[in-house]
């Protein structure tokens, strides 16, 4: 009577199929599509987010639009189903995002969240002891840098715009994008240094 999740999905999919609500081939195609998009950046994925960040580093007008109205600014890359806010890191403030109540994530831009973002450990702890959590990610913040933790409690999603690494003047967007990690857009990491 205690079925595994695997057995339960099978039963559910069969029932939905019997009533004509899902087609296994369509399910397969959806899974393949998200796997490919994640891999090659054709859909919402870390690569897409990195492209947006790199552009903001190189294009002050895009950066201004991104901070003012992120949904409109990223529309040319991906249309958003929910509000989006971009949080710009500075020398004085670092931003981190979380969703304590479930696992809201800027997936319209970054794709599916990593397991740690959805974990009870991250959700419970990062609002209370963010410096300890960041240390587990290998981040140590300068003493005089303020730390802002953003709990995604409503439909607005957050993306962190990290600071541009030093010594990258004149770099192309493509070259810059390679420095932008997923964690740096969530706030649990810095961009790679060049």
């Amino acid at each position, binding site marked *: 009577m205690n079925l595994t999740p695997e057995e339960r999905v099978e039963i559910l999919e069969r029932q939905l199929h019997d009533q004509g609500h899902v087609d296994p081939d369509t399910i397969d195609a*959806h*899974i393949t599509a998200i796997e490919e998009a994640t891999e090659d950046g054709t859909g919402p994925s870390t690569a897409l987010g990195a492209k947006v960040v790199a552009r903001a580093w190189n294009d002050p007008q895009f950066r201004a639009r991104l901070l003012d109205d992120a949904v409109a600014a990223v529309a040319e890359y991906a249309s958003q189903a929910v509000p989006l806010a971009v949080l710009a890191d500075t020398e004085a403030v670092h931003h981190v995002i979380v969703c304590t109540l479930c696992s809201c994530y800027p997936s319209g831009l970054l794709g599916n969240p990593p397991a740690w973002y959805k974990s009870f450990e991250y959700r*419970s702890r990062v609002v209370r002891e963010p410096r300890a959590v960041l240390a587990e990610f290998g981040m140590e913040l300068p003493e005089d840098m303020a730390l802002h*933790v953003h709990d995604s409690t*409503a439909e607005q999603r957050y993306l962190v715009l990290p600071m541009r690494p030093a010594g990258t003047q004149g770099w192309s967007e493509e070259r810059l994008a390679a420095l932008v990690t997923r964690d740096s857009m969530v706030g649990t990491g810095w961009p790679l240094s060049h």
Partner: protein
Amino acid sequence: MSTRRAIDEIVTLRAVDGVHDLGGMHGFGAVPIETGEPLFHAPWEGRVWALLGAVMPATTIDRFRWTIEQMPPAEYLTSGYYARWLWAIERLANEQGLLTGSAEPAPIARPKPSSRPATARWQRGERVRVLNRVSAGHTRVPRYLRRHVGTVERAAFSWPPPAESAATGRYGNAEVVYTVAFAAADVFGPDHDHTLTADLGESDLEDSVT
């Protein structure tokens, strides 16, 4: 059944203080950071992810979240992410009649992300208190912020209140949602120096008199 009636029934069933409301809770260990993580950790997770598409057209994301929150606490804490999705999809498929009937329920209308609200009750810098809305059925006010005073950062966007759309499976009229900043020192004690922000609906806030 009227919207109000539906909300009342759900409030009776179950309200807001669930184990899902994890912010600030102790007892959880190191964050499990995985390198080279696959998109899905097992084929069945991918199928759960894809099956969400069968139930979402006729309901709201808030009702999906609220359904997950009905999991018994011990089951919630011992289930993984996609197992919790599966639990909710099974129930939503059942309530939409998808398991026993072939008629597709009508897709619902959805809000679109808008620009900043034109008018708002509170402006940047004003102090607001989080209401003790403990009978809301479903809420997106985390427990750790309840009754605390914060500072409005901005009137961020407009969106239908989650309590209603969780109760009815339909989106109601939008309200202004504010990004509010709180001092972690107030919330979690004087040895905390960070700032916390949350996005809170107008109906979850009141003027602060302090």
